[in-house]
């Protein structure tokens, strides 16, 4: 059994480090004055709520597989794949609010998300995963290099063929990503418009493929690795050293996953909102029309908990707002997931929207007119949830508000 589950076997010490106190079921931390003690795990809250639907139970499941008490199965995979990999369990497991108290389970377990991904990769090797919907999607991706069942040749259809951004040269490569290419390409256009206004030297490659995020998240490492290798070669060919992504998922993959898979990786990866923040700070972007209406912000898990970028979007909102910026009660490292990540949007679309509806309701509590974020994939799910909940809140990428403000 353990030969089949080679990754979990290697992770055994970390898996056994889960003592089982179960804080990952219930709680996020926060001071008495403003406690954040609500269900943190979207899978736990919106799933059937069995132990396997949150981290402690998933660790137990991994132990049982390693002990041979159960065997991998498609049913088991279905449970494991309901996790959005939001990382909230990792946040809770670090149960020391006091920086003086530094030894904790998190250090023993290290990174929960990494364990869940390797768990999935073992299930893929065991032949019981990914889910049928994922398999179909990846079959398409192998041919057309995107998970949206679109043609690769149409990836950059939203930009004129003679655009200067398609010409070689420039300081930055704009990595468009699949969602911003095929579904919400307004975000890409907006970014390029802003970049053009401040004379940011940008180039793009029509040869870019999907970043591979969905492959790495669902444990389909081979396809993820092939995708990464291809993009790596493209980046080297383009001859730049800095890559900008508007998608939090692409950003996380290029920034955190690629260096693990690519030996000679030597690129600086930036999220567009970091670039915009710097341009505003340096007064290269001037705010002319402050945005009226209360604004709130959804931290994408891939940008927030995964990459710890919290300040840049908030700095930008502070700069462009005319009225108040009101945080949702769960924000920054305690932000609630939109429900789309980890292959959940493709594997369990209704479940993903159900989670997002909760986030929309939380956004409505702030009284905001604008719910903004920095991830097109989150935005798609949040927009679906707005329809589902019949909400009036306007869901926009933060770049779109910036464009209106300058």
């Amino acid at each position: 059994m353990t030969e089949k589950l080679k990754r979990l076997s290697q992770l055994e010490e970390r898996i056994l480090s889960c003592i089982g106190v179960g804080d990952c079921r219930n709680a996020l931390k926060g001071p008495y004055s403003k406690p954040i003690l609500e269900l943190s795990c979207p899978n736990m809250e919106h799933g059937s709520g069995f132990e396997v639907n949150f981290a402690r139970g998933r660790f137990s499941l991994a132990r049982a597989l390693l002990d041979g008490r159960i065997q991998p199965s498609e049913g088991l995979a279905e449970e494991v794949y309901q996790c959005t990999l939001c990382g909230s369990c990792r946040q809770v497991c670090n149960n020391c609010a006091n920086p003086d108290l530094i030894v904790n389970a998190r250090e023993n377990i290290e990174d929960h998300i990494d364990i869940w991904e390797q768990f999935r990769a073992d299930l893929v090797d065991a032949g019981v995963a990914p889910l049928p919907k994922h398999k179909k999607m990846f079959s398409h991706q192998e041919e057309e290099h995107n998970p949206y069942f679109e043609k690769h040749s149409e990836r950059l259809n939203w930009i004129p063929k003679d655009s200067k951004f398609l010409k070689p040269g420039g300081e930055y490569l704009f990595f468009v990503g699949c969602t911003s290419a095929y579904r919400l390409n307004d975000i890409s256009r907006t970014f390029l418009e802003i970049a053009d206004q401040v004379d940011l030297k940008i180039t793009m490659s029509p040869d870019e493929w999907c970043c591979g995020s969905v492959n790495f998240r669902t444990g389909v490492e081979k396809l993820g690795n092939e995708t990464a290798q291809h993009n790596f070669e493209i980046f080297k060919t383009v001859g730049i050293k800095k890559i900008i992504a508007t998608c939090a998922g692409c950003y996380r993959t290029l920034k955190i996953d690629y260096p693990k898979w690519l030996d000679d990786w030597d690129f600086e990866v930036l999220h567009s909102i970091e670039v915009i923040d710097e341009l505003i700070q340096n007064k290269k972007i001037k705010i002319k029309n402050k945005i009226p209406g209360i604004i709130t912000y959804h931290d994408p898990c891939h940008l927030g908990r995964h990459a710890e970028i919290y300040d840049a979007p908030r700095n930008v909102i502070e700069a462009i707002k005319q009225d108040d910026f009101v945080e949702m009660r769960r924000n920054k490292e305690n932000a609630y997931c939109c429900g789309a990540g980890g292959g959940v949007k493709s594997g369990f679309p209704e479940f993903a929207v159900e989670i997002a509806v909760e986030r929309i309701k939380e956004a409505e509590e702030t009284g905001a007119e604008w719910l903004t974020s920095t991830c097109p994939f989150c935005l798609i799910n949040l927009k679906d949830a707005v329809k589902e909940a019949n909400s009036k809140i306007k869901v926009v990428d933060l770049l779109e508000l910036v464009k209106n403000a300058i």
Partner: protein
Amino acid sequence: MALYDELVKIVGNKYCTDKDYICVAYSRGIDPCLPEITPQIVIRPESTEQVAEIIKIANKYKTPVLPRGGGCGLMGGSKPISEETILLDLTRMDKILDIDEENHAVTVQCGISWSRLNAVLFDKGYYTGNMGPGSGLTASIGGGLSHHSGGGGGCAKYGKCTEHCIGLEVVLGTGDVITLGSQESKFIDNPFIRYGFGPDLMGIFLGDNGTMGVKTEATLNMYRKPPYYSGKTFYIEDGSYEKSQQIVLEMMRLGWSKELGIYDFFFYPPPSVMGITTDGLIESWGDIKGGVFFYVHEAFDEQVLNRTSEVLEKISKKYSTRELGPSPEKGNITDWFYAEQGHWQIFHNLFSLMGPDYFVATTEFICPISRYPEMLHKLDKWEEDHHEELFDAEAESGVGHVYMLNHNCCYFGSGINATTDSDLKEDVIKLWKEQLQFLLKEKMVLYMCGQIGSHVIVDSRAYSDTFYNFFKNIKNVVDPNGIISPGKFRF
């Protein structure tokens, strides 16, 4: 129709399963030492009515039922003892049913966690006083009430959590539903007091380790949370057992929580402190090697707080070597403990220290204040006497902490840190039982019994025959087929 199908009919497919890959996750509590047994079915009811139906079906098939709250049992209380068990996962029953601000009472479904309940109460300026067990971030109200729990904060002021239960709804082993407390009278809608209407039968179900029925709803006293608090941490280099007792006794003479507002008082014996400092858990404590104590006290008036602070500080300084602090950076952990929910995290950090190779075989017990230093010495002696066996089992024995209750007792967080090596499990369990037996013979009270503790109590013949027969007779009345948590207390 088979058992499983009948259960599915009650809660639907989504909340009932016999899949091995779901059930297997219920084969453990926090201890990974006692045998892990997978239940045959796990079911998640949402209402008292559903629980009652489930129990009736279980009776029909004579199948054991194990109620489980947060699943934080340290002594095998929240995992099955037999494979045919239907595990009743009660965490779906997590609603706050009523907050009665006029009568300072809150009614909840028993599957809600202590932290979620208190998060709502904080917003209204209240708390439950005793904040449940140390695992209160996930432990349920029902679990706390089943074990006379404490440790999650507030024990010095409010005692055990069961002291604050004023209403209880229980599904008996027959499937009948009864209400206890003032609601024993059918004319009373809202619970407000535990006592009256004859004998205190609620007590049968409190601290029962989940054996006498399934707790479905509870009404707890809630208290105004004082707006002011303060806390100090002190270090005692030598003689910390006796000196910390002197400090407690002196504070008690001056009114303890009633007059001085003491909310919590924790003592960490030197071996525990050494473990904390060696592993760098609290870096600001440096390499101190003595005992450490800290207290937190509350007040509704700032001047009162300042005055009581002076009194507490004076007593503490009289017996201690030096203050750790006053800032958190200098080692005063009380802000974290009280204001940043450290009270629910302090034990978890210690558990986490064990890492992948060790676990806690806890022997927590209640000790009268008068014998507190003596018991610390006796447990040190027990470790010396069992040095060889402990060494062979790759285990260590000790007391992690002692924290005070509200009148004349304290909780001991004692036990054995043991290896998870499966070849040594039997040896560890033997030592675990020996220490529990030792504590019983030293006239200590085991309050959280689970599987192993309840067996040791019965096997050691700690109960008189008359009492045990009485206990069994009551069990037979409330659960005639013996289907609720069978095996505990040798039922």
